[in-house]
């Protein structure tokens, strides 16, 4: 279990470094052990350096930067141990145009081995998703589903 943690940590750490730089289009980030000599009890810290900026404490990050950084961490975990289904509820809301494009590309790549359901109001995400599931209230207060784009129709 000590080795198990170390192996998992190393894999997730490497994944995180890759995903962070990919999603931000630059910069670098690390997971680090708070207590490397005490692997059984150590915590895990995050240190980030955004493109063109210096290392900053996490709290100073912007709303969108925090959201994208957390997504990089989520992807890092999923790359190591995929969940069969991942539901995202409007996590792209704080992202700007460029960041949401990179986020959508990552979703598409990971969707080869993970089913994603992503609730979104964002036009970029909607355009990138192969399948659309519309939810409406024709009758007030009653939800109905409206399949809007099927997986085999490759038209935008």
């Amino acid at each position, binding site marked *: 279990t000590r080795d198990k*943690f170390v192996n*998992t940590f190393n894999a997730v750490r490497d994944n995180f470094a890759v995903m962070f730089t990919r999603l931000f289009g630059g910069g670098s980030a690390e997971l680090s052990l708070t207590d490397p000599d005490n692997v059984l009890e150590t915590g895990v810290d995050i240190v980030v350096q955004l493109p063109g900026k210096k290392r900053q404490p996490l709290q100073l990050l912007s709303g969108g930067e925090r959201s994208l950084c957390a*997504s990089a961490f989520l992807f890092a975990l999923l790359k190591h141990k995929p969940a069969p*289904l991942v539901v995202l509820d409007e996590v792209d809301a704080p992202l700007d145009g460029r960041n949401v494009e990179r986020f959508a590309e990552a979703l598409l790549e990971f969707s080869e081995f993970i*089913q994603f359901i992503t609730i979104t109001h964002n036009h970029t995400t909607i355009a990138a998703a192969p399948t659309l599931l519309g*939810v409406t209230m024709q009758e007030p207060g*009653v*939800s109905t589903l409206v399949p809007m784009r099927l997986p085999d129709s490759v038209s935008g």
Partner: protein
Amino acid sequence: MRLTRVKIFGFKTFADRTEFSLEGGVVAVVGPNGCGKSNLVDAILWGLGEGSIKHLRASSSQDVIFSGAQARKQVGYAEVSLCFDNEDGTLPIDASEVWVTRRLTRAGDSEYSINRQSCRLRDVVELMADSGLGRAGYAIVGQKEIDQALAASAEDRRGWIDEAA
């Protein structure tokens, strides 16, 4: 294993029988505010055996049963059925297709079944444990979870790495 089909009746705003299939890839769920997108997600979470009504934005269990609209009467129960493809045997059950069903009546009676065999809530939770779904997994992510991922203590973060081990 993969979640392949979802059937919903009487859960929150899904007053009528509702079904859809999941064919892999990215499904974007869209619609105006309050139309039922997060409710759809709540239904899946509830079907998986979610025990905490706070995670379902409810204050009592029966809050998840459709309580009516201006032109529609309430219904007497909520029911969600989830179908899993278990060809790869990830779920600890000898079946290539697994249906999990959960029902709750207004009177407060709960019923659970796996492939039509009546069972208890803990059987559903145990079936799903270690599948990456349900509370142990990181399967449902909203703005709160995103904020938590960074605001969490170093110890909590280590816990997530342990869960991915």
